[in-house]
């Protein structure tokens, strides 16, 4: 009975789900358009100088004009962000797994990790430039890796440790070894924690890459382009590069979101059910 009902309703429910999602997005789209219009109006009405705040229409035109400069610059910086993110996450996850295996590591390392995580790691950017060379992309990647490493490691350790005591006792009643506990319980339990850190990390890595480029780098880099154009009072150019940066951040975040959905389909359905 239930089964036939579901199949019957299926195409209809998909359509209405799409329509509902669009309807839910409408206020946001409306607000965006309204905001851009208000921006344009404020600049015209109060006669704000172009070097202080360019009109959205001007930024749009400059973006089209500079497209072949800002897009490759964006891709260059994105490579640094993604590279650093990859290094930082692999290290973060690896060390987290090691702490789950040897509790002594976790007790020794965690207080420092939490302390370092609350410091402005970006302040090390000039040091990394000095260590790896200002034009070497690795100087930026290392900053990004450091920035994403700590939240990923800390969250993964939490996820590995904060398992339901009953779930643990259940496996103990089967006389399982620690490896099985890790594979069957701790790792699946840590995935939601890990992915919330990866999502934060995706955003942080773009910020980290661009800001560390403000301290110097090759001319192909987006951060260098922004700081140079700003120094020359070319603010429409700077803004169009900032647009690329925003787009990069959002794309990276969405990519992680998609991977999360693929890795933990159950988690999404669970959250949807809880809403």
């Amino acid at each position, binding site marked *: 009975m239930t089964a036939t009902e579901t199949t019957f309703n299926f195409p209809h429910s998909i359509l209405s789900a799409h329509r509902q999602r669009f309807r839910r997005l409408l206020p946001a789209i409306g607000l965006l358009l309204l905001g851009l219009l208000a921006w344009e109006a404020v600049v015209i009405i109060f006669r704000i100088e172009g070097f202080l705040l360019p009109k959205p229409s001007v930024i749009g035109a400059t973006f089209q004009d500079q497209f072949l400069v800002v897009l490759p610059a964006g891709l260059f910086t994105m490579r640094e962000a993604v590279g650093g993110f990859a290094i930082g996450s692999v290290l973060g996850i690896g060390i987290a797994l090691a702490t789950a295996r040897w509790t002594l590591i976790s007790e020794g390392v965690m207080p420092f990790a939490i302390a370092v995580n609350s410091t402005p790691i970006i302040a090390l950017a000039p040091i990394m430039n000095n260590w790896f060379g200002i034009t070497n992309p690795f100087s930026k990647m290392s900053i990004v890796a450091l920035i994403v490493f700590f939240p990923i490691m800390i969250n993964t350790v939490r996820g590995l440790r904060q398992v339901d005591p*009953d*779930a643990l006792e*259940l496996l103990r*009643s*089967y006389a*399982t070894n620690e490896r*099985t506990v890790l594979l069957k319980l701790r790792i699946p339990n840590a995935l939601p924690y890990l992915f919330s850190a990866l999502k934060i990390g995706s955003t942080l890595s773009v910020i980290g890459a661009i800001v560390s480029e403000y301290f110097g780098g090759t001319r192909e880099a987006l951060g260098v382009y922004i700081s140079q154009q700003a120094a020359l009072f070319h603010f429409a150019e700077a803004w169009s590069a900032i647009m690329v940066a925003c787009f990069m951040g959002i794309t990276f975040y969405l990519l992680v979101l998609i991977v999360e959905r693929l890795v933990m389909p159950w988690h999404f359905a669970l959250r949807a059910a809880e809403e």
Partner: protein
Amino acid sequence: MNENNPVVSIQGATKVFNEGGTDRVQAVKDVELEVYPGEFVTLIGPSGCGKSTLLRLIGDLITPTSGGVKVNGKHSKQARIDRDYGMVFQDATLYDWRTVNKNVQLPLEVMGYSHDDREKRAAKMLRLVQLEEFANHYPWQLSGGMQQRVAIARALAFEPAILLMDEPFGALDEMTRERMQLELLNIWGQTSTTVIFVTHSIPEAVFLSSRVVVMSARPGRIHAIIDIDLPRPRGFETREDPRFFERLTEVRECLRAGESGKSHVEGYK
């Protein structure tokens, strides 16, 4: 029944938590109990009487401070290694990331059963708890009662000698609870498993059990053991049988006696 060898034999088991500290608690003291094959034994008592502790001592999830537990003549630790225990907790404790089918298969995976064998056993167990249609659902898509049925199916999937249940129906509403009790008796009848069941509900204990072990608190010890000679199979009409009420009264009075008894025995220790 007593002509058989006991499945579980508890010999002077004592458990003290935080020995030497100011928060030292004697959870269980000098408990002697024998449980025979195919029995349904319930541990009942006020909160803090150590009934859950006793259940965990039997299952070797904690070790006794003194005394011991033998299961089929083996040390309880060996019994755990031999996978003699099926556990059911108050919360179903299903893994959110596994479907119902995969949850039932969890112990089988851990114990190295083949894929075909796992599928076969899980299907059989889900039929037993009448959840075949929900095999591919996730646990959180099911009601509390259904989740607990999955937990029972999981506990029985590897045919353990003993089913240990720690207030498994404590979180369910009264109607679901009574239905689950009936289903549990059906399952127990079909599998001939020995069940040790912790509860603080008197009607639940009387309805389910062959024997009710009444415990008293601080320190937890056995106050009395009451035989429940109600005919089987038991059903909804059992709860209206005058003998059911007689046993209910007996257990209740025993619990009260156990409570008043504690003050002059161990009150100032």
